[in-house]
């Protein structure tokens, strides 16, 4: 039962965060690239002021999977690194916290670029 409740929480919170972005796309004509940049920066800011952490505790992957969660990982990485290493952590923490995602995206995209052909834009 707890398993299904956690799925439901992730579904509702994650879905709602997508709806906000959809409204921005439809109402302001923001490009997808700007939406992604906005969400990452907002994720860092919301984590910094202590609002995003509680949402992650509540919704789990519903909060960490949207790009706001990428910002959350950056901010959490920085916080941990500053606690451990001092000021230098401000430079090392962010990319350390997100290293897995960035390396995975780079590696898989490269491998699939070798395997697949491009698709003509419809």
């Amino acid at each position, binding site marked *: 039962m707890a398993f299904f409740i956690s799925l439901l929480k992730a579904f509702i919170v994650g879905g709602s965060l997508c709806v906000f972005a959809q409204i921005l796309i439809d109402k302001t004509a923001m490009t997808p690239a700007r939406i992604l940049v906005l969400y*990452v920066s907002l994720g860092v800011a919301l984590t910094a002021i202590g609002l995003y952490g509680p949402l992650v505790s509540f919704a789990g992957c519903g909060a960490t999977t949207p790009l706001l969660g990428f*910002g959350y990982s950056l901010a959490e990485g920085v916080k941990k690194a500053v606690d451990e290493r001092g000021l230098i952590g401000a430079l090392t923490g962010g990319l350390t916290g997100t290293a897995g995602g960035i390396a995975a995206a780079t590696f898989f995209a490269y491998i699939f670029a070798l395997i697949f052909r491009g698709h003509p834009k419809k």
Partner: protein
Amino acid sequence: MNLDTNEYGKFVRARAPKSPVLKNCLCAFLVGGGICAFAEALFHGYLALHITEENVKTLVPVTLIFLAALLTGFGVFDDVAKIAGAGTLVPITGFANAVASPAIDNKSEGLVLGVGAQMFTVAGPVIVYGVLTSVIYGFIYWIWGIAV
């Protein structure tokens, strides 16, 4: 037909295609929510395999990135994204697609200036602004720690 500006405005609005904002939002909610629920299920699945929680936190986004890049390669991702809009864009799948799609499409320009350079046309700004804000946060957090 003689119409003043006001009437012409009404005429145009009545004939313009209705912006399906509600339908778009519903699609974004269902697909985006579905991806997040799938991620949550993966999270529990990996934990059940006795993988440490710290590794699971990395493994879940890595799995989603792998799947999104694979579906981009097959050309399926774009078809889903057309319907789902922000539903596939906002989760980490959108980031993976933003890396994989130009990499695959620009292969003909070569492995360095095509795949290598084009890979980060959209994902690059995301990393730039993410790192920028996180360094600023780190600096403020450090000052705060000294001052308090």
